[in-house]
């Protein structure tokens, strides 16, 4: 069923922040685990890093970097909204957060190619 009361930009900003937070929270333990392989089994980590060169994995990384960046900028927007004087330009800020995140993740992606 459509839920039109949610179809506004700032609600999407909220859901993007939440989803990115969840994905990051799920991904982070994995990331940490990989890194600690450096301690126990460097060969396996290297093997993984080679695997990481695959395009599909690159794309996944791109997504993760995007989510991290968008979560961060989104979070900064929220904190600015909460702690700085009110600005009516919240939609612009939310859009800027997405744009910046996209910029960062794309440059990451291009560098990684």
């Amino acid at each position: 069923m459509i839920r039109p009361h949610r179809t506004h930009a700032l609600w999407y900003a909220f859901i993007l922040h939440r989803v990115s937070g969840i994905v990051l929270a799920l991904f982070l333990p994995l990331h940490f685990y990989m890194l600690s392989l450096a301690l126990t089994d460097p060969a396996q980590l290297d093997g993984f890093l080679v695997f990481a060169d695959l395009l599909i994995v690159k794309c996944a990384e791109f997504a993760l970097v995007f989510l991290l960046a968008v979560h961060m900028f989104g979070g900064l927007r929220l904190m600015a909204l909460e702690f700085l004087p009110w600005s009516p330009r919240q939609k612009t800020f939310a859009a800027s957060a997405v744009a910046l995140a996209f910029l960062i993740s794309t440059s990451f992606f291009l560098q990684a190619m």
Partner: protein
Amino acid sequence: MSETGEFLQVSIWREQDGNGHFESFQVPRRDNQTILDVVAWVQQQADPTLSYRFACRVGMCGSCAMMVNGAPRWTCRTHVQKVADDNRLEIAPLRNLPVIKDLAVDMDPFFDKWVAAEAVFEPSQTRDDPMPPINPQDPMRIAASDAIECINCAVCYAACDVVAANPDYLGPAALNRAWSLVNDSRDDGQDARLKAVSGGGGCHNCHVQQGCARYCPNELNPTLSISGLKRATAKSLLGWGQ
């Protein structure tokens, strides 16, 4: 009454004793017609048992809010023309409140939270004291005034997903009123109020969805007010005083 010869296909939520379903009606479309007029037409001409609520019919009492094509609206001031989607309307009871019957909801939980938020003036003076002089340009007075013209219609309450998800959440309207009072120099209940809005249902649960501000028919901004409360409570926690 100028009828346009067109008909509206209106789908109205019917509910009694917890059982609900949509029912369809054909309502003649008129030039000057609000959603409330549509609902009243159905009750008066098609189904006499249809229940709904209104009082002032001009956007002052906040008793007529419903979900219209999925969005919360004050129905007495919502022109059909503004919301009808190809002559189709879907009218349902306001979200996030228990249904009494059909389109009438029980607003008590909304007001219970209003009181729980200490969103009630706590006097520091009596009727025997003189009128306090108040500079209308004082920033605090301006902040309080900006939040005050609320008609307690619960439209914001229906627009907020946190209200749906967290039964304790005090909701945008009560918090908005609490913020107005935080800026009221005559009020003597600030400590209790900040405490009341700092608990498990307090202002910190707002995730800044801003549906409240988007749908408030009086163009109030509960998001701004809630942010103010977040700042005020943070300051008091860090001991930076009021």
